[in-house]
């Protein structure tokens, strides 16, 4: 009950004691061009099944990161707005308490992790994720496809009947950690770069430790343009978006890009 009362005061009730590390990302929408490089990089890095035509037609395509595109305004003053959407690694994740087998839980680094081996595929977490960031393996993976030769050895190939989602490239986090530990050093800001961050040509995505006040991501998160998607649900995400700077904002219709703008606190 105590926990619940704290919840009303917008106190984050962190499920797990933190170890001074909370991975997070800042997405600067002003920089995003919607080029989809992050999507491709993610597919290559994380062994995501190929979205072949039949799978797409079955509405079972998987994209751990996707670019949401919103059209805004009336012709001819149409603007395209882009919003990269992926697992928000909520501190107060709706997907976590509904899993009956702890296949998804919060680890000490603020990551919302998915344990493939434990997952039984109730798909409750997918239903409960407001960001549509979770994907289900409806079919067994056909490894004879052209992708087979390119599999990333550091990432599990998922079997049928389980959920998967963005991991913030946890394999890269572990690798950097290990390299630094070999040299007997602490992990530095900028050491870890998930595939999408690495691939982003416009530096839209910035990844790092939100608990470290000096990190780039923590500083950007203080930007006055910051907001979180669907903040009203109280999910307390670790992904922070920076609102698009719109020089003509006052002339056109008030910016309303579906989920993207509905909770913005500060106008640009």
């Amino acid at each position, binding site marked *: 009950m105590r926990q*619940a*009362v704290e*919840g*009303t005061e917008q106190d984050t009730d962190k499920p797990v004691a933190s170890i001074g590390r909370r991975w997070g990302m800042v997405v600067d929408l002003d920089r995003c061009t919607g080029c989809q490089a992050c999507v491709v990089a993610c597919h290559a890095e994380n062994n995501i099944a190929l979205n072949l035509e039949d799978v797409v037609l079955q509405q079972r395509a998987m994209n751990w990161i996707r670019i949401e595109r919103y059209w805004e305004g009336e012709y001819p003053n149409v603007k395209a707005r882009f919003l990269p959407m992926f697992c928000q690694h909520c501190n107060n994740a*709706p997907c976590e*308490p509904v899993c009956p087998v702890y296949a998804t839980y919060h680890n000490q680094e603020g990551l919302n992790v998915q344990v493939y081996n434990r997952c039984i595929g109730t798909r409750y977490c997918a239903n409960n994720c407001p960001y549509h960031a979770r994907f289900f393996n409806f079919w067994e993976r056909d490894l004879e496809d052209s992708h087979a030769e390119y599999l990333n050895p550091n990432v599990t190939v998922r079997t049928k009947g389980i959920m998967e989602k963005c991991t913030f490239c946890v394999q890269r986090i572990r690798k950097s950690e290990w390299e630094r530990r070999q040299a007997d050093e602490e992990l530095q800001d900028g050491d870890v770069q998930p595939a999408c961050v690495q691939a982003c040509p416009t530096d839209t995505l910035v990844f790092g430790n939100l608990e470290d006040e000096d990190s780039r991501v923590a500083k950007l998160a203080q930007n006055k343009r910051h907001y979180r998607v669907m903040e*009203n649900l*109280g999910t307390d995400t670790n992904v922070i978006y920076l609102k698009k700077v719109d020089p003509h904002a006052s002339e056109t219709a008030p910016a309303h890009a579906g989920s993207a703008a509905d909770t913005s606190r500060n106008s640009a």
Partner: protein
Amino acid sequence: MLFLGGVAGFAIRLGAGLEDRGPWGYYAAVFGFLFTVGQAAPMVSFVPRLARARWHGPLTRASQVVAVAGLLNVLLFIPLLWLVPSSAVRTTVWFDWPWGAPHFYDTIFVLMLVVNGFAFLWVQAIPDLAALRVQSGGTHRLARLLSGSFIGTPKQWKVQRIGLAVLGGCYVMNFIFVQSLISLDYVMTLVPGWKSSMFPAFYSINGLLAATAMTIVVMAVIRRFYGLQRYITVDQFWNVAKIMLALNLAWAYHWWADFLTTWYGRVPRETVVIIGTRSFGENVWLFVAAFFCCFVLPLLILMWNPWRKSVAGPTVVAVLSLIGIFIQRIIDYVPAYLNTQDPLDHELHEAIAIPWPGLPDVLIIVGGIAGAVFLVTWAVKALGPLSNWEMQEGVILRRNEKFLNAEVPYVIKPQ
């Protein structure tokens, strides 16, 4: 006297003006409480009838008597009409209906409920009134007027029975409808972001519980002061106690379902109202008191058959439940009226604490309840404490016969 004190308190409040809604919270709570208690009473006499239970004979009049307090509600209701903003400045169930929604429609429905209730009670009382007319040799003018030409022909009895069934059925639906409506229009939609579909149902459950409790209390009082121990037996208390226990459990169940859904959802907009204001937040002690009075203590007392099967046990539980429901009404109404935010806001920013009642509030609470008690006493005097014909029917339909070696009660069930 206390009633007059209440009127004085009301006058003080009125002097302070109707513009500011905040101070009227306690007044609204009294209204809500009496509305709940008074208007639910005919249900108590109707529901066992529908279930064809044969033990309710002595119970009906007690509940009818309570229903007279419903008149008072109508009086109390009038100032609230000015206090509550129209649907233009908040979301209500009325959407964009014309003509002063919600005030106009709510008034109509409340009046309809009262009329329906009195019609039901009148039909129920006709045989007794006729008996009174006969016994007084036709000199009792009121009885003569109200009982019409009822002389107890089979056809008249049949019409009376159908009338009871139809009016009673209508009343039950009407009651739940109006309770839900009042809970929405006069409480919930005043608070931004409070959107719990459980609330109308919970409010109605409170109403049923209060009515049952009030019936038990009235029964116990009548039994004691009119010396009717032979007519109102432990049997009746035992049976009502079962209903009482069921309603206590239903109360807790509805509250729990509401709470759990909110707590799990962890949506700030909901938690700030349902948890922060209404249960474990600012007003935790009020809530705990209500929870104990309406659920924990009744359960602990009524779960034991010897206590269920006594006069004292159910009466104590009934009094506790009434107190609990009154507290619950305070939790319902006072924050809603204290809310200073625009009801159209997306969410309540912080939980609302309930202040202690001031002198006018106390006067209003005491006066309102005293007024209801006064009316009830008057009604007992006017109507007679027991429903005569139902008692007689009960006597006819129940007899003890030998069964093997034992004497057992038989209940006759006409189709």
